[in-house]
């Protein structure tokens, strides 16, 4: 076989081919704000100031198609953060989305810098984020080279990656899985559905109480998450904190 080298050598500086809707830029351009806000299928856009919440955004791009002078999505795929507020991008503010190192718990860098094993739980996920999380480990993205892998048992895991809007029927299994992971452990929300409920927001079939009872260590937006967004987000989480063993 002669498949050649298929792996993306530098995941931090790779470029996604073609169109990618990453960090948006919102100008100060005056537009019909009511129409803009009403356009968004997941109410991710707010007025005064005009802002987009990437935790709610499905990245469909409808706002940018209708108001191209107001909103533009850049190809910046590094949109993961550990601060929920940083997912809100406001008009006139053009700065990249990044983690707040001050919010990273000390034991994360202490324990997980070189090795992080994750248990994935799909709680109503539509299998799109699941496909992309699987892709993180394929020969193209090769997340394993950084010591980051998905494992079968929560007993072997250092954290949990949740996809989907968190259904009522998955509330109890999710909690049991989390409880089975030894301390210290982290929680990552992958995808818009997990972060805010996405298009399922308001459904009576959801039970999102797990999120209000636990601290979230990383938010990875996307519909679905792009493997490069996920890998870079996790790398930033385990590499940019200050190491220390105390809590």
């Amino acid at each position, binding site marked *: 076989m002669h498949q050649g080298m298929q792996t993306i050598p530098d995941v931090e500086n790779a470029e996604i081919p073609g169109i990618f809707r990453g960090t948006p830029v919102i100008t100060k351009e005056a537009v019909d704000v009511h129409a803009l806000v009403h356009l968004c299928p997941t109410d991710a856009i707010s007025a005064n100031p005009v802002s987009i919440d990437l935790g709610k955004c499905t990245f469909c791009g409808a706002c940018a198609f209708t108001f191209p002078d107001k909103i533009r999505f850049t190809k910046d795929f590094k949109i993961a953060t550990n601060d929920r507020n940083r997912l809100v991008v406001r008009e006139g503010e053009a700065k990249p989305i990044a983690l707040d190192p001050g919010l990273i718990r000390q034991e994360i860098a202490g324990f997980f810098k070189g090795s992080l094993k994750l248990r994935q739980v799909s*709680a109503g996920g539509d299998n799109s984020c699941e496909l992309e999380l699987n892709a993180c480990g394929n020969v193209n993205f090769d997340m394993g080279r950084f010591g980051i892998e998905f494992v*079968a048992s929560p007993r072997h895991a250092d954290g949990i990656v949740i996809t989907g809007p968190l259904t009522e029927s998955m509330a109890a299994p999710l909690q049991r899985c989390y409880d089975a992971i030894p301390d210290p452990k982290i929680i990552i929300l992958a995808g818009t559905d997990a972060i805010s409920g996405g298009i399922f927001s308001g*459904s*009576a079939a959801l039970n999102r109480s797990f999120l209000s009872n636990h601290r979230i260590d990383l938010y990875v937006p996307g519909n679905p998450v792009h493997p490069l967004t996920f890998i870079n987000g996790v790398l930033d989480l385990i590499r940019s904190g200050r190491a220390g063993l105390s809590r």
Partner: protein
Amino acid sequence: MNPYKVYGPSDMMRGVTMKNNTAIPVKEIPVLQYEDFLEMNCSLIGEETHHCVNYFGVHYGNSVRLICCLADDKDATLLISSAEINPEEATNYPSFTARHLSFHAFERELCENTGISYIDHPWLKPLRYAFNRKNQGEGIENYPFYEIKSEELHEVGVGPIHAGIIEPGHFRFICNGEQILHLEIQLGYQHRGIESLFLTKKRLLQRATLSESIAGDSVVGHALAFANLWESLCGYEPDEDLQFARTVASEIERIAIHTGDLSAICTDIGYQLGSAVFGRLRTPVINFFQEWCGNRLAKGLIRPGNSHFHFSSHLGNHLKKVLDDYEPDFDEMWKEFHTLPTALGRLEKTGVISRDLSASIGTVGMTARASGIMRDIRTTHSYGLYNLLTPISIVKHHGDVYSRTKIRHDEIVQSSYYLRKIIGRIPSVAVNRRSLSAPAHERFAISLTEGWRGEICHCAITDNKGELLHYKVKDPSLHNWLALALAVRNNEISDFPICNKSFDLSYCGHDL
């Protein structure tokens, strides 16, 4: 031997006949006595040319209108009939399922959602524990599993959370040593209330977004079913530019997911080379979606009456290049894989579902075709530009894991051929595209597409203001989950993963 009256063409007036992707006034659907309704549908379904594509209940006050949609694969028509019942008054309805097993999931759903109770349904258990189910006293944690009390047999419970990155569902095996005697699959963990959300989220973009979130591995299949349905409700004829892009997207999705499945099948038999190579071959295919519409799974690509992403000749050339690069490597890997005795030994005669069994439980799509049954909406109820491709369905005959693997290979080769055939005639970008009007009042619409997994069916009913009164989604998985449960009988439990992957059914598509 049939004690029932056999219905023939003269009885067709008992239902209304329509075509795929059309809408009719609701009042044209005849309302039959339940007994006649049952007789007609059950008689017709005994013939292989007919199968049930959707059967559901719509609440009208205290009563429930049952609507059954049978496809006539020979005439390319859909026969819609209905009956009105009051579940609270009568509790002793004879079931369709007792006559033909292929109705079993529909009637379980009807029982769960409307409270209709059947006297002779063989397996009347909750289907998905929908949030708006009639019996709120029952919970998913108390699902009544089939049990065998025995000293020799043991049970194995797997899930709802599985070992890989995969959706949740519970599998309960009853085994004799390593041998599976019985498998019961309990789903519902993924239930998000999608059908209700179609009614409560009223903006078109919200509904289009919902449709592409039904099953994220079948974005094109479901989004297209919604777009076609909505356009027929609005009396909108999509232009060639739209039709072209949708047809191309459908076949790219088929190639991408089939390739990923071949990788996963290799993973499950521990064949690392196939796993890695098929895995990486999928990447440029889904990256083509990225380049086309900015999303690797084609979310955002298909919109009713509109498109932001014209399929340009530049994209056509690029797609040709993607296929040119894909084909030789795919071909080489396939030859390596399917001549490897250790691989074939795991696939052949494993997880067999015979033609008769497949027909009796009403499988659809790739699963049916791998068991020798021609079920393919592209050929029998054509839509989009498939009539230009004169598609021929690929049918396999052994119904084993190997058949379901080989059919993926053959369908990839075929889809690639279709794409090459069609990209020679890219239509120019549509100018002055007509915009959608509001949906017509009191209409019933139905849309069928052939996703990579099988037939997807969406139905909608509008009220006297043109608002959605009912929305019904059916993923092919609803039919096919039982096939998996039956296919693993008498196999070793260690072969369960490979059987499961060979069907690759959707949890979220089933749970909705």
